[in-house]
């Protein structure tokens, strides 16, 4: 009798754990799965004032189970582009959807060719772990070009770079066309320029399926590096292709003493992306955790520079990088 009561209790308790149903692996089922992932997990629907229900109403009739996979993929890519987010992609085994207007609709303000001019990096620059560096402006200014936050460097690397600039009066950090990478590298890089730990932003995550279900903001602190400190003036160069982790780096550096941001508004990408999967095996990446600056303002659409400077065509034709020259002027005038 006792055993049967136990078995009934165990069977009853197991009913508390119901596995969710996965939509069928048809075009209709995959559409519903994708729409639901964005509806419940994408973090900017409310901030961007996107009516996701109306998106469903527009796209659902266009989805036919008879569509071939390429046509269906293109339609889903079109739907995701409604989010206007460079962190949203659909990955299949034949294509990757993307939204690029966050930088293609804006001027480049960068030319890789100009960096190879002898007055800047030249061809004989030093390079370590993704950091390309040289002394410029008659050795008065140190210049670092860092094109990828997914390439890690160590404290030893940075110590050696900054030691090379020990006789320089100032420093330029160029993160134009840096599409991001590791958030931890953004924190590490910024830590060399802070005298004390500083709250440089905030972060939230989704706590439920509702468009406004977010956790309390968690402070993003930038520590002060205990051994390596650069205390002379710094200018950070940014353009629209300074995205994601680079956006986070610029947002942090804006709070650092002796640092100015120069160039264009950064590209944004303030939402930390996560991934999920559709029944047909395609992967979707989407912004999940919104990040804010120190004033609790969204950074999804970029960080505004302290000094706005655009690359002039006449300068570019003459082999001059307007932004680097403006940074040198700003630093030397100090």
């Amino acid at each position: 009798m006792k055993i049967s009561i136990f078995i009934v209790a165990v069977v009853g308790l197991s009913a508390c754990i119901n596995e969710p149903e996965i939509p069928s692996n048809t075009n209709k089922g995959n559409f519903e799965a994708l729409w639901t992932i964005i509806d419940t997990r994408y973090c900017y629907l409310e901030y961007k004032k996107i009516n996701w229900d109306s998106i469903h109403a527009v796209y659902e009739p266009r989805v036919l189970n008879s569509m071939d996979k390429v046509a269906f993929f293109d339609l889903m890519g079109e739907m995701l582009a409604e989010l206007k987010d460079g962190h949203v992609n659909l990955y299949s085994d034949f294509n990757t959807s993307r939204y690029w207007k966050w930088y293609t609709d804006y001027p480049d303000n960068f030319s890789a060719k100009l960096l190879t001019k002898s007055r800047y990096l030249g061809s004989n620059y030093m390079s370590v772990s993704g950091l390309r560096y040289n002394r410029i402006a008659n050795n008065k200014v140190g210049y670092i070009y860092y094109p990828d936050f997914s390439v890690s460097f160590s404290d030893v690397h940075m110590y050696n770079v900054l030691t090379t600039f020990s006789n320089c009066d100032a420093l330029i950090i160029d993160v134009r066309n840096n599409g991001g990478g590791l958030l931890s590298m953004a924190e590490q890089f910024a830590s060399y320029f802070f005298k004390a730990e500083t709250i440089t932003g905030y972060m939230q995550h989704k706590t439920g399926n509702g468009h406004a279900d977010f956790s309390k903001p968690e402070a993003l602190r930038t520590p002060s590096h205990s051994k390596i400190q650069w205390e002379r003036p710094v200018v950070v160069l940014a353009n629209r292709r300074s995205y994601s982790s680079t956006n986070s780096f610029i947002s942090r550096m804006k709070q650092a003493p002796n640092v100015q941001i120069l160039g264009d508004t950064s590209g944004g990408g303030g939402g930390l992306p996560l991934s999920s999967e559709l029944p047909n095996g395609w992967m979707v990446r989407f912004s999940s955790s919104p990040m804010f600056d120190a004033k609790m303002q969204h950074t999804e659409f970029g960080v505004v520079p302290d000094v706005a400077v655009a690359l002039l065509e006449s300068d570019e034709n003459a082999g001059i990088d307007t932004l680097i020259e403006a940074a040198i002027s700003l630093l030397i005038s100090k």
Partner: protein
Amino acid sequence: MFRRILISLVLFLEVCTVASQAGDAKNYRLVARETNIGFGALSLTDPYLSPLSYSGFSLCSDYLARSYVSVTNPNLSSQLQFDGSLGLLSNPTGTASMLYAGMQLGWGLNYHFRFSNHFQLLAGGLVDGQFGLKWLSRNVNNPVNMDIAANLNAIAEARYDFSLLKQQFRLSLQLQSPVVGGMFVPLLGASYYEMFGLGNMKHAVHFSSLHNKMALNSNLNLQIPLRKLTVMVGVATDSRLYKANDLVYRHHASYLSIGLKANVYQFGGSRNEAPSQFLSTDK
């Protein structure tokens, strides 16, 4: 006369000495050590990584050492166990793969109920710690999820001994199920960067009991004596279904296993040095 008395005294003392030796006979606790390896199928669902179920093959190995707690009580035994498994899985459409690695370390006590010379039931409890890692390399920022749990388990083993072709065999069924404990299950929207980089672990650690965690480990094997060892062949399963943060996780593995069992006496340390007639390569 004197010689008779002397001989009688010597014989009496000899008998007393033998009797005394019999009375001082020392009992020794042997340790039954079992080691198994298995190969089988694994399927799991981890909604933090993907809503889809991944399935594939898995290798597992487990070690169990059991001995009586005291020589004076042959009904209470302790056991120490360590399990490990590796799996390579893919999603239903074969477009992504997942690596799984898991381990469990546990210690427990069993009471031995002897119903007859042939049938014995062991029942008790076991405290364990579990750690698992699932790696879905295709994912961005959430490529990994960890299984971390500590449980108080109910454990039981049924043993049936029988003879066949003048050989002694044993059929054994071992069961283990968590009753209460704690587990790590992150919120679907929380990144590891925020949890471990910023230290925001809210809603990541959960109390677990039968209301949100159902699991059963089983091992059915036939034990065949072979010279100084016992060979074990059998089937094992590892099933878990648990829920937290509105996410339902599922793990099911089935293995064909083969292993060896031996009873050994452990010398070691300063308290239990081996007598001189035992020769050790350690000396």
